[in-house]
C-alpha cells in the first residue's frame, strides 16, 4: 500500500533522472523503457516527491503543517540530494556507471534470441553489430551486441548449480559456495587479463573494451550450467555429450564474433590475406576461442563424479 506506492514513486523518479541525464544513450531510442504506470495514486506520490516544499499532500498532512518541521524536512531532503550527487560523482570516477548501464539495457526478446544463438550459432547469418552515429546500439535493439546481463545471471546460476551438484554428492558446506564463487571469478579475471595482454602485444586496433571482453568470457557459463544439469539428471554420458555440443557452439560463436572485431576488413570477409600481421590476428582469434572449451571443462569436471 504505502510502501508499494513509495517504491513505485521512487522508481519513477529514477526513470525521470535517467531520461534527463542520459544524453549518451542513442537518441531516438532510450536505454530503458519508462514503465511507470500513469495511475492517479502514483502520480500523486510522484508529484509529492518532486515538489518538496509544497508538500501538504495526502500522506502526513498534520505532520507537515508545522512550519518548523516543514523547514527541517526541506533541509534534510536537500542534504540527501547533495550527498547522493557527491556519491554518484565520485563513484563514476572509478566505475563508469553510465557505460555499465548500456550493457544492461536488455529485454526478454533479446535474451531469448541471444540464448538461442549461444546454443545453436550455426544458422545465424549476420554477425555485425550495428552502430548509430559512432556508438554501438543498445543490446535491446541489436542481437549481436554484447551485454552483461546474461553473463552475470549465468555466473550466479553456475555457483548455485555447483552448490546443488556438491550437495547431491554430500560434499556441500556453505563455505564451499564462496570458494567456488571466488575461484570462478579469479579464472574469469585471469582470462580477461590474458586476452588484454595478447591484444596489446599484437597491436590490434579494435574497439573492444574491457567490459566487452568480460561479457564474451561470461557467455560460456550458459553452456556450463546446462552441462552440469544434464550430468546431474542423466549421468556422465549426458554430461560429456552436452559439454561437447556446447564447446563446439561456443567455439563457433567466439570465432564468428571476434572475427569481425579483430581481423582486418578483407580477412573478415573470408579472403585469404597474407602477411604476418593478419596471421597473428587469426591465431589470436583461434586461441581465444579455443581457450573457452578448456575453461568450460576445467571449471565443471570436478562437480560431476
Amino acid at each position, binding site marked *: 500500500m504505502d510502501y508499494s506506492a513509495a517504491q513505485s514513486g521512487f522508481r519513477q523518479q529514477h526513470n525521470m533522472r535517467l531520461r534527463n541525464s542520459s544524453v549518451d544513450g542513442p537518441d531516438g531510442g532510450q536505454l530503458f523503457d519508462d514503465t511507470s504506470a500513469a495511475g492517479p495514486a502514483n502520480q500523486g506520490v510522484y508529484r509529492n516527491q518532486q515538489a518538496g516544499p509544497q508538500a501538504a499532500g495526502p500522506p502526513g498532512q498534520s505532520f507537515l503543517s508545522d512550519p518548523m518541521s516543514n523547514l527541517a524536512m526541506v533541509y534534510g531532503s536537500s542534504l540527501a540530494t547533495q550527498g547522493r550527487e557527491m556519491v554518484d560523482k565520485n563513484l563514476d570516477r572509478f566505475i563508469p556507471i553510465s557505460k555499465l548501464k548500456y550493457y544492461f539495457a536488455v529485454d526478454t526478446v533479446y535474451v531469448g534470441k541471444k540464448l538461442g544463438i549461444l546454443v545453436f550459432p550455426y544458422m545465424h547469418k549476420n554477425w555485425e553489430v550495428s552502430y548509430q552515429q559512432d556508438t554501438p546500439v543498445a543490446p535491446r535493439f541489436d542481437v549481436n551486441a554484447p551485454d552483461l546481463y546474461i553473463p552475470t545471471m549465468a555466473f550466479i546460476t553456475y555457483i548455485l548449480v555447483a552448490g546443488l551438484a556438491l550437495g547431491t554428492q554430500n560434499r556441500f558446506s556453505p563455505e564451499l559456495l564462496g*570458494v567456488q564463487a*571466488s*575461484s570462478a*571469478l*579469479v*579464472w574469469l*579475471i*585471469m582470462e580477461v587479463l590474458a586476452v588484454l595482454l595478447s591484444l*596489446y*602485444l*599484437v*597491436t590490434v586496433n579494435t574497439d573492444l573494451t574491457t567490459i566487452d571482453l568480460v561479457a564474451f568470457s561470461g557467455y560460456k557459463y550458459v553452456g556450463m550450467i546446462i552441462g552440469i544439469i544434464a550430468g546431474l539428471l542423466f549421468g556422465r554420458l549426458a554430461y560429456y555429450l552436452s559439454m561437447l555440443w556446447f564447446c563446439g557452439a561456443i567455439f563457433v560463436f567466439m570465432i564468428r564474433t571476434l572475427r569481425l572485431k579483430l581481423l582486418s576488413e578483407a580477412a573478415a570477409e573470408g579472403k585469404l590475406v597474407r602477411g604476418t*600481421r593478419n596471421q*597473428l590476428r587469426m591465431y589470436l582469434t583461434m586461441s581465444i576461442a579455443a581457450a573457452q572449451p578448456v575453461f568450460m571443462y576445467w571449471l565443471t569436471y570436478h562437480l560431476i563424479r
Partner: protein
Amino acid sequence: MAFTLYTLIQTAILCINAIAVLHEERFLSKMGWGADQGVGGFGDDPGVKAQILNLIRSVRTVMRGGASMASTTLQNCSVHLNK
C-alpha cells in the same frame, strides 16, 4: 582448485616483480633483448618483440618509482598474514 582473490593479487605482484628484476646488461642484452634493440620498425607495425621489450622497460620504470614501495609493503603484509 581453490583460488581466491588474495592469491590472484599475490600472483600478480610476483609476476610484476619477476619482470622488474630482469637485469639489463647482464641478461637482456646478451639475449638480444636490450632496450636499444627493439625499436627497429617505425610505422604502424611494431611487431611482437618490440611490444614485449616496451612492456618490460615500462614495468621496470614504473616499479622503480613508487610502486616498488607498494609491492614491498604488500609482501610484508602477506608474510605477516601467512604466519
